[in-house]
């Protein structure tokens, strides 16, 4: 019984770990499948139609909350369409996308200052 209890606890921890960290590799697939890039760009750079999401400042729960009840032009995605786990994976992928770098590191842009 003890052993089973430990196993269940370990499973729960494992699931909890997945939910909080996500699988970035799967997140990339989902990012492409679910068309996040359409408004937010393949690099998560953002556009006229969607915010920059590369290296998002949101945590996974924040991202899930936003996707369920977005503001502006963003459509709402229900759990049936994309699960919390899948969103967590996408979040993990977004964390791997590089955010803005110093303008001075891009010579062409630096000349525009």
């Amino acid at each position, binding site marked *: 019984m003890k052993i089973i209890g430990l196993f269940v606890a370990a499973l729960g921890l494992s699931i909890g770990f997945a939910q909080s960290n996500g699988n970035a590799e799967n997140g990339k697939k989902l990012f492409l499948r679910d068309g996040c890039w359409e408004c937010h760009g393949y690099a998560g750079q953002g556009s006229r139609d969607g915010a920059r999401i590369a290296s998002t400042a949101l945590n996974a729960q924040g991202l899930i909350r936003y996707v369920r009840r977005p503001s502006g032009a963003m459509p709402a995605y229900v759990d049936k369409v994309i699960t919390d786990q899948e969103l967590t994976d996408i979040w993990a992928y977004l964390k791997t996308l590089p955010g*803005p770098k110093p303008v001075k590191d891009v010579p062409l842009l630096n000349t525009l200052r």
Partner: protein
Amino acid sequence: MAKSKKLDRRGFLKGATAGAAAGAAALVVKPPAVNAQETAQARPAAPLATPRQVALETGAPPHVDVYTTDRPGADFMVDVLKSLNFDYIFANPGSSFRGLQESFINYGKNTKPEWITCTHEEISVAMAHGYYKIEGKPILTLAHGTVGLQHASMALYNAYADRVPVYLILGNEQEIAFRRSDVEWAHSVQDAASMVRDYTKWDDSPVSLGHFAESAVRAYKVMMTPPMEPVVLCANGQLQEEPMSEDDRRSLRVPKSVIPAPPAGDAAAVEQAAKWLVAAENPVIVAGRVARTPAGIKLLVELAETLQAGVQDRKFRMNFPSHHPLFNTGSVAAADVVLGLEVPDFWNATHTQTPINRMGMQSRPITKPGAKLVTVTAGDLFSRSNYQDFGRYTEVDLAIAADAEATLPALTEACKRLITSDRKRAIEQRGKKLAEEHRRNRERDLEQATVGWDASPVTTARMAAELWNQIKNEDWSLVSDTTFVSWWPLRLWDFDKPYHYIGGHGAYGIGYGAPAAVGAALANKKYGRISVNIQCDGDLNYVPGVLWTAAHHRIPLLSIMHNNRAYHQEHMFLQDMASRAGRGVENAGIGVTLEDPHINYATMAKAYGMYSSGPIENPNDFGPALKAALEVVKKGEPALIDLVTQPR
């Protein structure tokens, strides 16, 4: 013109006789007059005429079919249209205006206006749209009254919604006896302009040359009075092709053309607006189609600087310098006075809609309670009901029905007069804050542009930055919209001249972009400017034939394909709908992507005789390709680079 004295083609075909009609003498080359008595004296030894010869010389001449004329009615039409000082005619050829075309190229010597060959009527009108937005002069376009107008109609609607004058002449054979075949029956129409009457300002179908002259000049005047809109004039085939009688030649004249001064705002209303603006703590100016002439930018800058008010540019025109400290600063939400200048979507500028409310149920003003809303627009002087481009009704506190540019001098003067020393200090303080906001916005844009800098497909920010790097030291002109590239050029480039930007479609009718760019580039050509076109792929596929027009007429234009391989706006809408329906978005690409096979625009451009390169997928290859293409453009030719890009 006395119609009873006019000789029509049927009269000729029945057989012209010397005395049958007065007009006939004008149509045949007469032999030199000979005095019979003098001839007899000079040649007394000549044999006597036979009875047959006598009969031939004194009796009625035999029937002779006459197919020629030395002066068709179209020549006079050309005289009238030349008086309106058109630079060019943009047209795809059509039999219903063949008479007019022949007169333009021969009698009119194909100058002022010069004929520009277009491969589609939608191209003709959209090119005219773009040309006007650079040159401030309307173009003469011609089309069949039926099939040609059907092609041209969407472009005409764009021009209408964008308040751009286009002068469209429709060929039509109104008289049934002149229709040669089933083709001409199919190309004839009872009321040609009816199809586009909802989105043109005026039209007429003249029944005589005198009528044509008056209506042609009237059409020009109506078109050029704000709000400027397209007009349609029908050119009856019979009038074009039949000869002018001697009476016509003596009596017809070209009426004088005078363009009315644009309507300026009522003095009392302008004073009231000035009082509110000067007293405001946070006034903001929303700029729509304000700058109608090159003077418009200076006038708007003067008002904004007088008030140190932020200017929210809706990007319909080159209204305000993009590096000015007041550009895109201030906020409608924080404003206590919002001044809308020629803003067609003022309701959208002052309201917000949540996703659920986008279905049309609810909306919310974003302005503060008590904020004063003031509009100045010539749109209040002209309304049609069927097409709904007028937008939602906006509740404002003061509506000045007038042309904004014409009203700006009085408004600025009134503001200057009302500014006290106290207000001056407050206004200066506000200016400093807005300048700081502008600086922060610019820094944020630059930082934003770094994200995905090396990505493939190429980001639109990188595309804009690379382009700017090549053209910044040239006399350049962006002849395309920036909506579909997230406005990156407006965020990175230094726009300050009237020809630096031409705004967008008007009615978002796709198929505008490529021809408008070519039309605008033609206007830029004589000034030696480098015209730059960021060309959406979906748009070019509507009207690829315009590439040939650019190549054939040697119109220098640097086109960069924004080749994102889909109709992305529609793709996003499908995602939205699928999400609403809870069905997932995996199928949202069906019907909206342009893949399998990918379209090779470089090959397409080559087929039309244009220099091209690409498709380019590596962002590092773009700069060198640009440099090479720019050299071609500097030599006076068009060039196209196919760049594979991010969606927006």
